[in-house]
Structures are given as structure tokens and as C-alpha cells.
């Protein structure tokens, strides 16, 4: 980078420090940064963010400059990358993984006039917002299908890290699989990674070896589906549609639809109307989309699954609707009630019926 540009960036930053988000526009076209946790072609989580970014880029064309940094490790590296983006003139930075949470808070404190958006986290400030999708709503639909499709009455779940989002997914999957098939059991395997295809494949094999014949994954690659295909078992697309694995093993999918949100927020920066917020959108707002349910699923099960989807969308049903008990048998949600978002965002226990402990 030439010194002149550094100075320009510094000047832009100085201006933005003095005048707020609108000033970034004044100093040139706004620059928006994204950091991805995996490679942009991982076929899952990161790729889906990347495709949403591409859509935003198409929409704004030359009006906005977008920079993307892929495979940024969670931790100190993320802080360094975001600081670098802020220093080089970015007015809005999206951090697209849960593990960036503290890094975002640290960098946001250092650059009060740069705006931050953190995906799936729960910490925000005057210049950092959070956005999240109610993935557990999608899990309810997939869980129902899983409960109906299993012949061994054992379903598997590959967890990444024991954070509330993943625990919501496990609970929601189990609750709905159990409603569909009271004999169902769930086995959870934690692999301590978002993206590790070899480990995801091994975990899938281990679940199959233990008698599971439907496996849900909460990781980013297509390795579980590739393994399930070889074994003739069933699974679901995660983050992306993964339609290339339909109709078997992929029965349906939970698609993360980020593009509308990115366009909305980038527009807010361009217009100078950006404000911090904490949003948590679901099927209703179309941030969570259920991929087409494949022909391998019997028509009646498909209809039931679609009914669950639609009742969640119109608000008549909540996946964590009472009565629900905690794993130890104590009451969690009473009959006819539903938990508030704060409880869900801090969820750290299994519901009754799930065996095993959450690693700490």
C-alpha cells in the first residue's frame, strides 16, 4: 500500500471519528469488510455468507467497496484482521462467526466510529450490532423428519462447540424427533471445530457404527453428507441447501439466508442511518429457509414437516412451547408458555430425554 493511501485511510478514519458514519461516505465510497471463519468455498456456512456478500456487491455495484478475508481464525488473529480493515478505511465490518465475539468488542472499543456487525453473538455496544438466525426453528422441521425416517430409532447429532446456538439445535431436533417417534434416542458427538472435514466424516462414521441411521450436523462442511451417502443413511443440508446430495442422503436442509440483511445494513451505512441493534430472525423473516423436502420422504411426513414450518412462520407455534422439562426432570417451560429469547440465548442444558453431558 502506498503511503498516500495510508494517509487517505487515516484521514477518512479521523473524519469518521469526528463526524460519524456519514463521514465515511464523504471521504469516498464506503468500504465494507467481511471476515469468514472458513474458506469461502467450504460448501456450507462460510460459502453461504460469501454468496450473500456477492449478491450485495452486485446490488451496490461501484457505490460500495467490499473486502472479504476468508479463513480467519477465531481469537487474536481476528482482532488483527479487523483492526487492519478499520485502519484501511472500512466503515462497517461484519464478523461472521460466534467465536469472533470478544474480538469484535475489543476492536469496536478501539474504533468507536467504525460500525461492527457480529453474527450469532450476544454482546453489542453503541457501534456493534448482532444478527442471528433462529436455526432451531429449522431444526424443528428436520428433527420431525428425522424422527419419522429413522428405522433404528437412533439419530445422531454432530456438534461443533457447546454454545447456546448448538444446544438449541440439539434440543429442538430431539424434541421434535421425539414427538414424531416416542422411541427415538439421540447421540451427540462434539468435534471441537466448525470446519474439519476429516473429523466430521469420522464423527459421522462413529455415529453410524453406534446404530444411528439419520445424522444431523452442526458443522460447516459437506463431509457428513458424503459419508452418509456411502453408508446409505440420511442427513440434512446445513447452512446451505447442499442440493447436490438430494434426494438421498439429503432429505431437506436449513438454509441461512443472509443476503437481505447484508443489503439492508450496507444501505444503512450508505444512508448514514446505521444504528446498533440485536436482531434474531427466523423462518418468518426468511432468514432461515427450509430447503425442498426430497422425494425420499413419504408425502404424509413431508406434509407434516411443512405444517410445522408454516405454523412457526405464522407464529402459532414455538419450537420450545411448553410443557418441557430439563434433563434432570425439573420443569423448564410450563404448559402453554414459551421461553423468552434471553433464556434461549443463554441455553446451557439439555431437555429431558437426551442422555449424556454437555462438555464444559
Amino acid at each position, binding site marked *: 500500500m502506498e503511503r498516500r493511501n495510508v494517509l487517505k485511510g487515516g484521514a477518512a478514519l479521523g473524519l469518521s471519528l469526528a463526524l460519524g458514519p456519514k463521514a465515511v461516505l464523504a471521504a469516498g465510497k464506503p468500504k465494507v469488510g467481511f471476515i469468514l471463519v472458513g474458506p469461502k468455498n467450504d460448501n456450507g456456512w462460510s460459502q453461504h455468507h460469501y454468496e450473500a456478500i456477492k449478491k450485495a456487491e452486485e446490488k451496490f455495484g461501484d457505490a460500495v467497496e467490499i473486502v472479504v478475508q476468508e479463513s480467519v481464525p477465531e481469537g487474536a488473529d481476528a482482532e488483527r484482521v479487523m483492526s487492519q480493515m478499520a485502519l484501511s478505511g472500512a466503515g462497517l465490518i461484519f464478523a461472521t462467526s460466534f467465536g469472533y465475539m470478544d474480538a469484535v468488542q475489543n476492536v469496536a472499543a478501539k474504533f468507536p466510529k467504525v460500525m461492527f456487525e457480529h453474527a450469532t453473538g450476544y454482546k453489542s455496544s453503541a457501534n456493534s450490532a448482532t444478527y442471528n438466525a433462529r436455526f432451531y426453528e429449522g431444526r424443528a422441521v428436520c428433527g420431525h423428519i428425522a424422527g419419522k425416517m429413522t428405522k433404528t430409532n437412533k439419530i445422531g447429532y454432530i456438534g461443533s462447540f457447546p454454545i447456546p446456538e448448538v444446544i438449541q439445535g440439539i434440543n429442538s431436533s430431539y424434541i421434535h424427533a421425539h414427538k414424531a417417534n416416542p422411541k427415538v434416542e439421540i447421540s451427540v458427538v462434539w468435534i471441537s471445530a466448525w470446519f*474439519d472435514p476429516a473429523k466430521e466424516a469420522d464423527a459421522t*462414521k*462413529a455415529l453410524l457404527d*453406534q446404530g444411528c441411521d439419520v445424522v444431523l450436523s452442526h458443522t460447516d462442511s459437506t463431509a457428513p453428507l458424503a459419508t452418509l451417502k456411502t453408508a446409505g443413511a440420511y442427513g440434512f443440508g446445513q447452512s446451505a441447501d447442499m442440493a447436490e446430495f438430494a434426494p438421498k442422503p439429503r432429505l431437506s436442509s436449513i438454509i441461512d439466508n443472509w443476503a437481505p440483511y447484508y443489503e439492508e445494513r450496507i444501505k444503512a451505512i450508505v444512508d448514514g442511518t446505521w444504528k446498533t441493534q440485536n436482531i434474531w430472525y427466523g423462518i418468518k423473516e426468511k432468514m432461515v429457509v427450509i430447503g425442498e423436502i426430497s422425494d425420499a420422504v413419504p408425502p404424509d411426513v413431508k406434509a407434516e414437516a411443512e405444517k410445522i414450518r408454516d405454523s412457526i412462520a405464522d407464529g402459532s407455534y414455538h419450537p420450545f412451547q411448553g410443557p418441557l422439562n430439563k434433563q434432570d426432570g425439573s420443569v423448564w417451560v410450563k404448559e402453554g408458555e414459551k421461553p423468552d429469547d434471553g433464556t434461549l440465548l443463554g441455553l446451557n442444558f439439555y431437555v429431558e430425554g437426551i442422555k449424556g453431558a454437555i462438555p464444559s
Partner: protein
Amino acid sequence: MDFTSLNFVVLIAALMVASVPIMLAAIGELVVERAGVLNLGVEGMMIIGAVCGFIAAVETGSPFLGFLGGAVGGAVLSLIFAVLTQTLLANQVATGLALTLFGLGLSSLLGQNYVGMKPPVTGKVPFGPLADLPVVGPILFGHDWVVYFSILIIAIVWWALKATRLGLILRAVGENHDAAHSLGYNVRRIRLGAIMFGGAMAGMGGAYVSLVRVPQWTDGITAGAGWIALAIVVFASWRPWRVMLGSYLFGGITVLQLNMQAAGSAIPVQYLSMAPYLITILVLVIMSSGKGRAALNAPASLGQNFHATR
């Protein structure tokens, strides 16, 4: 501890498959180190093997050519290492680390257009009714050919190092390259051969990850298997059969910890994941504690560059 819910036959069969990549890479590295060369680029050669093998298999439709492609890819990458360390006398540790970084980047570039594709299936060896035998069937007769090949290569390396003239020369070069040189052996050529063998084995191990274990191509697919292979060579104190033991132990623990989770075991998995590394450290401590026979196993010229004029 509740082991009753685990199916041990399935577990052993699974660990044999899970161990193949690290076993191949480790036996290759063993030969390299016995020739006195320390190549830390195993991870890089594995991932290049994974991507080259994947491309070869997808383009030709033949899994066998895929493995061959993986071996060639790994060997070609190891040539860079060989030229830098044997001809230009670069530092072996630094060059090896650079090779890993280079391999990771290059594989990502080569694999760009192959993400999301499916490789041809590597079938099981048809043993007919033998595969249906209880217990022995799944363990001994239920695998693809690479599993048997990996055991065969251990036997060949063991026999070659122990009983052939080539093995004796290789060991001589690794123990004392000046003496070997004064006896008229071409130290550089022998080391070049060993490095390329190591590269080919690592490449094949990588191809096993992308063609059989996962099976697909994604960036960073080997996820550190090369480093485990390096640890196994030390763990095995440079003995071929112990490489097999070490690979089964490391591979076995990976499979066991996932299976135990799936079976709902209560012990924290972190302890199991840690175990192989703890054992490696323990072996290193015992080896470096001096007088025992184990300490004599490390090739005396390991990691030292050779030049005829010195």
C-alpha cells in the same frame, strides 16, 4: 467406564481405516529420517497428495490412478525439499516448515475447481464369503486395498532396512554420512531417493483422506495429520512395526473418543484426545534420559546437511 455399549469389532475395523493416512505418511517419513534427513513438510506433501489424488481420480474415473496421482504429487513436492536441502544445503527444519505452508496454499489453488465434486468409489477387496465371517470378517477381510497395502509397505520397509544391502547403505548414510561417503556411496543420491519415497507415501496417505475417508475435496482437508505422522516416527523410535502400532494407537484413540461420545460415555473426551501426545512426550523423555537402548535409535546424522568437501 461403560464399554458395554461399544461394538469392538466395528471399532477395530474403523480404526484400521482411520489409521491408514498417518501410517503411510509415517512409514515414508521413517525412511527419510533413517537416511538422516528431517523433513517437517509431511503435512504439505500429504495435502498436495490429497488434491492431486482427487484430481487424478475425478479426471480418470479410476481410484487406483488417483492414489498413483497422489503419490506422484507428493513426490514432486518433496523434490523441491530435496533440491533445497541436498543441493543448496538449506536448513532442513526451516525448509520443511516452508514446504508445509507452501503445500497448504498450493493445494487450495489447485483444488479451486474441484470443490463439491465426488470421487469414484474405492471398493472393498472382494474376499467373497470370508468377509461374512463373524469378528474376523469385518476386521481382516472387509477393507479396501489401500488398508492392506499400508500393512504390506510396513513389512517391506522393515525387511528392506533389516535384510537388504540397500537398507544397510541407507542406514549407513543416516548414521554417519561422512563414513558412507568415504566408502564410495553417493550420499546425496540415496537421500534424494529416500525423500522422494517419503513424499510418495505422504501423498498417498493424503489421497486416502480425500478419496476414501472424507471423500471429497475441501481446503485444509488433512487437518494436521502430517504432524501426527511426524510424532509417530519419534514415538516408534524409528522402527517400522512400531510405526504400525503407533498409527493404530493414534488412529484408534481418534475413533474411540468419537465412538465413546456417540455411545454416551461420561468421561471427558479431552483426556482421550490428549493421550497420544502425552505418550509421545513420555517416549521422548525416556529416550533422552540417556543410557538406555532407546536413545541409540535416532539416526546419528539426523537433520545434518552433507557436503562432500567438508
